[in-house]
């Protein structure tokens, strides 16, 4: 850190020498390793860049670290566009003892989550159409509680129903870098089950967890943000339907 050099000097170095052989490359790598290990949250390449000596080749460092940790018990992985260390997936069965009893999602909740994931942005009515059954408020509340789904906006149709989508936490939890990495997405798309339904007439890719609203989405109303957990309360869905899930 004492080695701050002027930007101009760095430029010179960057142009002339391959990154691995630059004198401070090893040090920058150690710093990146330490930052990634220490951070409770995944870090973006930019997060790292701002903490590394000026001119450090962050991409090269990350590639090296990923390759280096690849065969180890701890891997450097990319989730939600950020980098973090995780125990190797193949060791799950050995580490399972450490699991603090997690609440298991009901089948209905898991299905609803999958529909939101693959069809986002999606409204409650659309979820219900696919499942053929009313979705209880409890199911959506449970999912909101996990932090994996969020209210995105309101669809520009009569009734202005809320649209749901997934969060970066969802990607973190399921170890996905991008929403496009969802398992089986290609098959579903190929079978024509994904695109077109939600955004009829709009040829936009589904799913999308991009922060930017779609053309057919309005921002949430002010009171949506205040009353988040109870938002669904007054939507015109018959929750008393005995066929409702759970």
């Amino acid at each position: 850190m004492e080695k701050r050099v002027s930007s101009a000097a760095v430029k010179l170095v960057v142009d002339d020498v391959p990154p691995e052989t630059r004198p401070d490359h090893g040090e920058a790598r150690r710093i990146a390793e330490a930052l990634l290990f220490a951070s409770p949250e995944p870090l973006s390449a930019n997060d790292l860049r701002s903490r590394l000596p000026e001119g450090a080749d962050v991409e090269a460092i990350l590639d090296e670290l990923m390759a280096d940790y690849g065969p180890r018990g701890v891997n450097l992985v990319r989730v939600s566009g950020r980098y973090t260390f995780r125990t190797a997936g193949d060791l799950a069965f050995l580490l399972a003892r450490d699991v603090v009893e997690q609440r298991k999602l009901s089948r209905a909740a898991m299905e609803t989550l999958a529909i939101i994931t693959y069809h986002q942005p999606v409204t409650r009515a659309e979820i219900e159409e696919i499942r053929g059954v009313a979705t209880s408020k409890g199911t959506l509340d449970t999912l909101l509680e996990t932090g994996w789904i969020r209210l995105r906006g309101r669809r520009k149709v009569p009734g202005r129903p809320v649209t749901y989508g997934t969060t970066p936490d969802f990607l973190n939890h399921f170890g996905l870098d991008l929403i496009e990495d969802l398992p089986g997405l290609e098959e579903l798309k190929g079978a024509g089950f994904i695109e077109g339904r939600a955004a009829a007439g709009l040829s936009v890719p589904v799913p999308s967890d991009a922060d930017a609203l779609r053309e057919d989405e309005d921002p949430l109303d002010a009171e949506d943000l205040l009353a988040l957990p109870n938002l669904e309360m007054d939507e015109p869905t018959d929750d008393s339907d005995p066929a409702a899930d759970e």
Partner: protein
Amino acid sequence: MAEPLPFEDVALAERADGEPALLVDVDGFEGPLDLLLELARRQKVDLHKISILALAEQYLTFVEAARRLRLELAADYLVMAAWLAYLKSRLLLPEPPKGEEPSASDLAAALALRLKRLEAIREAAKRLGERAQLGRDVFARGAPEPVQIRREAQYGATLYDLLSAYARQRQKHFNSRVTLHKRQVWSLAEARDALERLVGHLEDWVALDGYLMQYMVEPAMRPTVLASALSATLEMVREGHLSVRQDSPFAPLWVRSGSERPAPAEA
């Protein structure tokens, strides 16, 4: 999904009637579409080759059986049954010439598509659930070392602050001494009150010092009592309430009520 539980005793009776043993626990299903999907699975064929007609018949059989058992079926199961009955009749009749309405085979295809879509999303849900999950299969660092914010205090103070603090402090001390002093003052008002009480029952000359003794128990009070009493005396003499005399310089003062003006009266 809960395994479909055959109603065993009933199933025997049903079988006697030669009907398919497809009695299932309605509670295990999440709506008519779910039931249809399960029935389709039982056809043990690819969903693409599913016979919607056969499926419709099985569904109707199920609903019929449930009704016979007086099971209360939710409305949407019955709505689906009515629709399937309609579809079945359309499928069995010769196709009418192309009209406004969708053909029976279109309707059947749409239903098949819905089933396939539900099946697909179920598969997706399953695969999602099977993914390595954080905190269940893979783990983040157990003891992360979050960045500590180290606050370094930088004190600011000006010379003005310093000087006014000093002055404030020193004056506070000084003023407190003055306040103590004040308590030792016998005010003019107090002196006058005392003299008026004295004058009230004074028949003859009285030595002022003697009368004032009672106010001078504390030696520190002596100067202030004497000074205030003299001032008050002179004031009362001027007003004509009191007469005062002194036999010689520094001799005791004598007082008497009334406005008599004898010769010597200065101190």
